[in-house]
């Protein structure tokens, strides 16, 4: 298991695995152990159905592991109630989705404000934080636009604004460039890198090799087995190509 000073450990996976029950139980994630430190920029790569989404869902507390210990900043999530998990999710994690998940009947600002709705802050505070977040992603000029009038890149920037408006410690991005063109894709990655440089731990699930190659640390997921490039680097002094799962095209 990767060692790190306890104070900087953001996420600790200890023999975490996920099995889906059924007539034929499926192990989506084999027992895995790793540490993600605060402020890291991590990529998760792998084929469709390899288990990377399961990993991301467990990381974001959207799903629970079948076994093992998942610890977030010293909090063992296995012992939390549903309400506590929800609160930790809300205050600690931000999410960026491939499909943006913007509400079509709300403006960009209102969509960003939604990220702060469940925190008990006032409408004025929400509005102020939403506008700051939109400014940070360069979308303040489109603050009143509804999603239908935004390009894919713009939609994703609004979605990122919604995520960072919550001031998360960890930003979990599931194929954030999957639905946008190359130019916008580069901008989004630059934006995520910029967010990471400001101290936010960023985890990006991607199929894109170019994007993966820009990330300092990668988890390659294949048949539920996670291969951590950092571990391999420790062993081989350099990151091997096979640490990155190649998408099937």
């Amino acid at each position: 298991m990767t060692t790190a000073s306890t104070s900087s450990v953001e996420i600790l996976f200890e023999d975490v695995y996920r099995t889906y029950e059924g007539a034929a139980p499926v192990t989506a994630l084999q027992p895995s152990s790793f540490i993600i430190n605060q402020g890291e920029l991590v990529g998760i790569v792998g084929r469709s159905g390899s288990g990377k989404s399961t990993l991301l869902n467990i990381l974001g507390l959207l799903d629970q592991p079948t076994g093992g210990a998942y610890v977030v900043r010293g909090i063992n999530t296995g012992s939390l109630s549903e309400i506590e998990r929800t609160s930790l999710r809300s205050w600690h994690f931000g999410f960026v989705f491939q499909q943006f998940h913007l509400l079509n009947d709300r403006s960009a600002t209102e969509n960003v404000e939604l990220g702060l709705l469940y925190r008990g802050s006032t409408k004025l505070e929400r509005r102020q934080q939403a506008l700051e977040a939109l400014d940070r992603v360069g979308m303040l000029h489109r603050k009143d636009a509804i999603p239908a009038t935004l390009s894919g890149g713009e939609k994703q920037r609004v979605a990122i604004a919604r995520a960072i408006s919550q001031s998360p410690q960890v930003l979990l991005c599931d194929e954030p460039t999957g639905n946008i063109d190359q130019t916008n894709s580069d901008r989004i990655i630059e934006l995520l890198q910029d967010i990471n440089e400001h101290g936010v731990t960023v985890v990006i699930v991607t199929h894109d090799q170019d994007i993966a190659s820009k990330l300092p640390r990668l988890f390659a997921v294949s048949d539920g087995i996670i291969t951590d490039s950092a571990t391999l680097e420790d062993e081989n002094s350099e990151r091997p190509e096979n640490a990155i799962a190649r998408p099937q095209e």
Partner: protein
Amino acid sequence: MDISQIPKSKLTWRDAIRDSAFGVVRRPTRTLLTALGIALGVASIVGTIGMSQSARGAVSSVFNTQLATQVSFAEAGTSSTPLLSQKSERMIERINGVIHAGFVSQVDDAQPISVSRNPGILPGAEGSFDFPFTVATPGALETMHASVSIGRLYDNGFETRHAMVALIGSNVADELGITQINDGPAIFVNSIPLTIIGIVNNVSQQNQVLDDIIVPPDEGLIVGTSVGPPTIIVQTKLGAAQVVGAEGPYALSPDNPDAIVAQVPPDPSTLRLKIESSLTSLLLILALVSLAIGMVAIANTTLLSVVQRTAEIGLRRSLGATPKHIALLIVIEGAMVGAVGGVLGASHGILVTAITAVAKGWTAELSWQAALLAPVLGAFVGMIAGLYPARRASKLSPVSALQNGL
């Protein structure tokens, strides 16, 4: 870090309502279509209440004028000394609540008496007609609201002068072929002339007089062999019929009130309430059925909406919404849609009531309570309808909601 350091997810009521209002206001077509079921139910209820109230006024007026103010008195049996006479009119008129009273009777037990337009025509011969004779005082004519198509009614002056006059019912006039009375047409009974002074074409009671020849009491024994049994007919003030009916026998026969039988209309308030309550109950049942259908419709639409918004629910869960917050969103939205339906329904219910009242010639009586409570009722029904979809929505796992809602 300890979990106690993490603030709990929370949603204020104001934010919950504001957030739900987004969905209702920003999707007006969906809102209106969903609210339609509730609107129909509420419109039925408001319309039912409004129409039954308006109809109550109409029903009341019919009862009041046609039935509830008419009382009559007759002798219970045959006695050697008649208990009722023309003087009975004045006895009854002294009772509080009596407007008019009159003496009515039949000549020869209402057996037809032969009359002719010319003297000397024998009964049964050509030119003779058989009609029953009714004896009525001027007070009785007034009490039965007799009106004439031509001519006039007789009054106390005719009685005092013992003028041999008669009124004929409109049906009698048709048979006799009398259409005008300017030349003082006469009819003859046993060669005794009676001058016809008017043709009675309408009465509010004693309808048989339209088929009769009506004469003052003094003429009864002139044209026939007997008069009786007498009836005292009375018109009372509104609401006084019951009292007059109870007091009348004592006024007419203080020594033996049981010998007088009063015919009093059923208590109009009781009868009216019976009619109204059965009518209103029927309509309200129909309205409640409509409302139930509306509730099922809104529940279905909300359930469909939950399915359509699965991804949104997943997103909200990822943003910190608890299952309770999701349920609250759906229930409040349901209540708001229901309230919209309530407002629409109340408006249409009032409109339908007004149109119906105008068409029926009623005075529209609208219940402001029903109109104001309608949105509350709609909201309540909408809220109930939203419970099941809300439960379904709150049970969605964030992962499956995000994946399946794509």
